[in-house]
């Protein structure tokens, strides 16, 4: 991460990690989560669910920072994020 000024508490900061859960059968393939994920974690997959939509898949799951935007934007309650304690990264300049 690039800072214009190094934060004074940089040694205490941790980048949160999230664990994505995609409920594929509920998805209607609108693509809101794919479009608005700030980290570009998601992508529409090639597989079909039983309704014939392409649910998203996590292509870079380790990049997820648990911002919950996908969960808030999903109109079908088909994706959510939980905080993963393991694998939190230290912030480095």
């Amino acid at each position, binding site marked *: 991460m690039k800072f214009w000024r190094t934060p004074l508490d940089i040694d205490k900061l941790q980048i949160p990690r999230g664990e994505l*859960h995609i*409920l594929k059968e*509920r998805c*209607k*393939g*609108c*693509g*809101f989560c794919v*479009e*608005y994920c700030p980290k570009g974690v998601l992508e529409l997959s090639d597989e079909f669910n039983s309704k014939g*939509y392409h649910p998203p898949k996590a292509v870079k799951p380790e990049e997820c920072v648990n911002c919950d*935007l996908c*969960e*808030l*934007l*999903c*109109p*079908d*309650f*088909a994706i*959510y994020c939980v905080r993963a304690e393991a694998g939190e990264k230290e912030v480095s300049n």
Partner: protein
Amino acid sequence: MSAKVEEQVREEHPLEKILRMDRIPHIWCPTCGLGTTVTALSSALEQLQLDTNKVAVVSGIGCTGRVAGYMKLDSFHTTHGRAVPFAVGLHIARPDLKTIVFSGDGDLISIGGNHFIHTARRNVDMTIICVNNFIYAMTGGQVAPTTPLTAKAATTPYGNAEHPFNLPLLAASSGAVYVARWTALHVRRLTVAIKEAIQKPGFSFVEVIAPCSTLYARINKLGTGLDLMKFYHDNSVIRHGADLNDVDIDFQSKIVVGKFVDIEKPTYIDCLNAGNKRAFGDKYKPYGGGNGDN
């Protein structure tokens, strides 16, 4: 099925405790903005930590009218346009409940328009969430009183010739104490606005601009709901406290969003108690939530 397999199969979305999961998946089209608005309301209720037995959701008819059926709260699905009068009765009978009217523009402003302005005038303590998709979506895309000038609808194939309502101005001039407008894309700001509206004593109004992919976007050749979301992203202007005469929406124009009005005014029950106390003195026992002094 063994317990272990069941545990793997059953993944629980955090909102499942506030939704009637036996009715999900909902009937809304892919890329409709309504599900996002329901998420905003649900997260607002969760963040306020309100007792779900003390919240009632009332809806009218239409796509948005389905919300009452999907939320695991005390809810009522009224006839067309009558969500507001039902909610007024509910509020007067049970002032301890937080009454939320969640309905669409056609239901609240067109058919229920008279109820809407008079409830705002009386400042009845309730929260109105009006999802504005610019069209009567469930019945096939007929022109609504919020359809922008020149926009096409099923009944105006050559473009709408009528001026639309400016909903924040209508609500504020009728007497609403809290008026905000956000789009379905501004989920976090919308959640904050709904939280403030629920906590505000008096008639609070939140307009949510939501994409309608199957009708409004298709008839006007605007792409899908995702394209409309991108349009909101590029064309929303946040202007808190904006002059409400400037916030009307033209076809594909800039959308002014923000918190426009946040004032204090005695609510209907407060005024009722104060009036009766003036008339009857100590013989009168104040009714409901108000203490009768103000």
